[in-house]
């Protein structure tokens, strides 16, 4: 059935999948958010163990979503994969190393004779929460602001700075997105903990932290959105395939594809609603903030990613040679590859269903301190 689709349609379908994965990833970063909160909310036991066990049952999902995102990029848009992962090398290595530390830190933290001591592993978790989120935000920021690469006619990529990706930290727009993701992750984590954990002290502290983080998040996020919408974007002429700079390109995308603009706004409103739920006097909604904010995060990031790929937009601009920039049309795999993979992508709903089912088994009731001390598999 995928053979009926045109090459352009297939590329659009796969960019949708990439966007869904990117959106899922940012939602899953509530795990990282929780890790970055251990020194504010988890200063003493049992709060620390409660936090780490509540988010710990889902830590692997954030790392695996990141890997699936990278994998899908590799399969569907290999030119992006080779350019960014091989070129912006140190940026991705930094992200990778913080995630490696995350994985083991959950497992080793509470075990006797773990060589580095529990405090070190907790610090690793914090590092992953801080640097992992900001770096990923900076990396995605470069989709908007561009990278320093050139392609020769054999599609071999050369990165033109010795920083190999780390120079992205010097761009203010990238940093705005990085810090937005960091504070959003914390907001999601707080809402998640308020929903999952049954501990009075933690609840009170969380509510306080929510306001602070929400305020800072809004400052960074709105600054980023305005900077992007009011700035220059990169577009490609569909007939000549020439890349050019277009003013207000991303804003234009939201206008020319109104469903996209509406999607973005719905997402933002849901996030704000999620942040507001603990303060509404509605008892039923009080702890459901994570659902609103989580869905809102997913929808907002989805809209941002789609804005990058659709409507003849350049999703990975080159700051060195404009014509080396990547669009979903010049960076994709062959039509045959996309068709085959599209059939495989039909399996994804089954995978998602299984993940949801597994979560439900874990999510039966709220976490309490007694539950952790009785459990053999606690972190």
């Amino acid at each position, binding site marked *: 059935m995928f053979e009926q689709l045109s090459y352009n349609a297939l590329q659009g379908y796969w960019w949708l999948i990439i966007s869904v994965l990117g959106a899922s990833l940012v939602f899953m970063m509530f795990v990282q958010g929780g890790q970055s909160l251990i020194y504010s909310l988890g200063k003493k036991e049992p709060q620390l163990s409660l936090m780490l066990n509540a988010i710990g049952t889902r830590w692997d999902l954030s790392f695996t979503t990141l890997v699936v995102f990278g994998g899908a990029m590799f399969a569907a848009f290999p030119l992006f994969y080779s350019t960014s992962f*091989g070129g912006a090398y140190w940026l991705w290595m930094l992200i990778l*190393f913080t995630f490696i530390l995350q994985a*083991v830190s959950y497992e080793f933290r509470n075990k*006797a*004779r773990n*060589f580095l001591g529990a405090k070190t592993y907790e610090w690793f978790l914090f590092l992953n929460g801080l640097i992992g989120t900001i770096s990923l935000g900076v990396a995605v920021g470069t989709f908007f602001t561009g990278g320093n690469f050139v392609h020769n*006619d*054999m599609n*071999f990529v050369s*990165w033109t700075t010795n920083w190999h990706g780390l120079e992205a930290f010097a761009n203010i727009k990238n940093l705005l997105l990085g810090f937005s993701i960091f504070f959003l992750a914390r907001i999601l984590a707080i809402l998640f903990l308020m929903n999952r954990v049954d501990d009075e002290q933690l609840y009170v502290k969380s509510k306080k932290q929510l306001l602070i983080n929400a305020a800072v998040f809004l400052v960074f996020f709105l600054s980023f959105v305005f900077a992007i919408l009011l700035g220059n974007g990169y577009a490609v002429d569909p007939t000549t395939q020439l890349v050019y700079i277009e003013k207000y390109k991303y804003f234009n995308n939201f206008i020319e594809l109104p469903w996209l603009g509406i999607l973005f706004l719905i997402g933002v409103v849901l996030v704000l609603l999620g942040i507001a739920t603990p303060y509404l006097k509605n008892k039923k909604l009080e702890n459901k903030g994570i659902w609103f904010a989580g869905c809102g995060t997913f929808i907002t990031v989805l809209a941002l990613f789609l804005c990058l790929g659709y409507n003849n937009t350049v999703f990975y601009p080159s700051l060195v040679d404009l014509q080396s920039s990547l669009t979903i049309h010049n960076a994709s795999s062959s039509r045959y590859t996309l068709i085959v993979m599209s059939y495989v992508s039909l399996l994804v709903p089954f995978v998602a269903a299984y993940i949801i089912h597994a979560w439900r088994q874990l999510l039966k009731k709220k976490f309490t301190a007694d539950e952790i001390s009785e459990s053999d598999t606690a972190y």
Partner: protein
Amino acid sequence: MSAEEKMARGRVAIQTLQEYQKAKKTNDTVNLAEISKKFNPNTKEGEHFLNNYFKYFGYGYLNDPVELIPNVALTFYSFHIMVALGFIFVLLFIFILVYVWRDNIEKKKFLLYIGLWSILFGFIASQMGWIVAEVGRQPWIIQDLMPTIAAVTHLSVSTVQTTFVLFAIIFTTLLIAELRIMFNQIRKGPDNLKK
């Protein structure tokens, strides 16, 4: 056909592709059409070019026939070690199966020790297999079409070294931690035996 001949033909193929790219850039439709005919498998000219020149595309990146030969000794011995270990596993499992059926495996201390150390053999066999695959494939990433030197990312040697060192440090540290945790737990023994 000699290696030199293949390399010469590969160079012709690469040159033709570059001419195609240049014609595309300058929108030279005359040249573009002419070169496209060479890549069209339905014409006689295309069939000849594809089977006699494009087939050796990757050879055009190589300079010396010596580069075509992978490290034979490494590949040979790794493969033999891997297969030997494979047969040892089969033998070992037969013995273990026999004693499990007879229900006296707990008494076969020697076999149990071998069983324990054979875990290591599993890792060795696996790594030998990888050596065969990755050393034996040289110089090709895609047989005849792309050698590894043409496919590798443009990263400096120091970058790769630094990455390797970082991985080595991190994973060694974590290995030490893992072993200490494991040994501690093993020494303590299973919980249900404490009573």
